[in-house]
């Protein structure tokens, strides 16, 4: 489409200057995040915990499977932090290689997909529980983690976000996963032992 840049402006009401981040850009991910978190928590609370779910061959218990899956997810989350720091130029003397973005995307995907079976087992077999502070925080943050992760994925689809938004959300996701790991896998390894 050709537009003469020198043409006189029309008398049409000028379109309002496009508000760069429109409200919907934030509202949709925020609502989606809330919906995911609340839905997971409600399912975990309402559904009668089955107590068990299918186990993987080679592991002594579902607790061991989950602990190792969560540990693997946490390891990939560390890759996430490192690659994000490099991408944002926060590591002195390191220029982000061209594959940093790919590494960040794929390590994140793997970490997320590793965490899904763990969450399914938690919600299906154990449910949302509050009988101790460890369990309460784990339940709360489990829902928060998947909500925040959803928000981050949806925000990534938008251009021109405020500079600090993605790092903050990513940091929240990482912090949630860390506490989740501390309150579950580390607890399991310490109380039950490092077993497979």
């Amino acid at each position, binding site marked *: 489409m050709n537009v003469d840049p020198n043409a006189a402006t029309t008398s049409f009401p000028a379109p309002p200057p496009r508000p760069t981040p429109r409200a919907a850009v934030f509202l949709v991910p925020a609502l989606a995040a809330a919906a995911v978190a609340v839905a997971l928590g409600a399912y975990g609370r309402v559904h009668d915990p089955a107590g068990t779910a299918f186990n993987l061959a080679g592991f*002594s218990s579902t607790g061991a499977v989950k602990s190792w899956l969560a540990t693997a997810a946490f390891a990939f989350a560390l890759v996430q932090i490192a690659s994000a720091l490099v991408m944002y130029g926060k590591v002195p003397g390191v220029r982000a290689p061209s594959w940093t973005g790919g590494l960040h995307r794929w390590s994140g995907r793997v970490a997320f997909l590793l965490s899904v079976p763990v969450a399914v087992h938690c919600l299906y077999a154990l449910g949302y529980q509050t009988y101790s502070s460890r369990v309460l925080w784990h339940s709360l943050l489990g829902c928060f983690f998947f909500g925040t992760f959803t928000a981050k994925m949806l925000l990534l689809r938008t251009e021109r976000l405020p500079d600090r938004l993605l790092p903050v959300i990513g940091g929240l996701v990482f912090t949630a996963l860390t506490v989740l790991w501390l309150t579950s896998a580390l607890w399991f390894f310490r109380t039950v032992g490092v077993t497979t």
Partner: protein
Amino acid sequence: MQRSGPLHTLLAGLVLALIMLSLNATTEPPAADAKGGAPPSPAAPSAPPSSAAPAPRSPAASPTATATAPRPDADYAGRTGDGAASVAIALRDDGKAVAYVCDGRAKEAWLRGDVGDDGGMRLTGDRGARLEGTLEGGRVTGEVRLTGLEQPFTARRAVKPSGLYRAAASVRGARVVGGWIVLPNGKQVGIVSRDGEPSAAPAIDPATGAVTVDGTRLTARPIP
């Protein structure tokens, strides 16, 4: 193109979750109560393997299996296959069973349910704890599952002072529930939970049930 990546990631996670949920729902042992809302089907009274799975938290709901041949009160006690936890089952003459599983440190569960005519039992407890067993030839064999513990077990007839003991009291504002299993060889395993926080229990005197928890003297009662 690249911008649809995050959506694909989310969708992949959702699909994976749905696959695992459906696998869970289908590979679940015949438990009809796996989906939560399913009402406990009143099983035919003569169905051989105890199929009257009582819904969790309402173990007394099943109308069947109550008017069975009376069996005297009896305790059974033993260990799990890996030796890490102890199991005690108290059978009452009215066909009800109470069981306690405990590793003496952090893992414990109280379970309740009915015993079928054939000696089969399927007990349930809080937080999804399950115990399935069969009474045969003076002992109960089966499998117990609770969070972080899935083990076969064998429990033999336990004659007092061995058996199952329980104490419940309020100590310094905390709800204290203790469970002890005294094995036929005299060893005992117990957990005291204070407001739901389990820890190793001090030993009881099996003759009197006396035990001191946090400076307060309690009496653990034998079950049944």
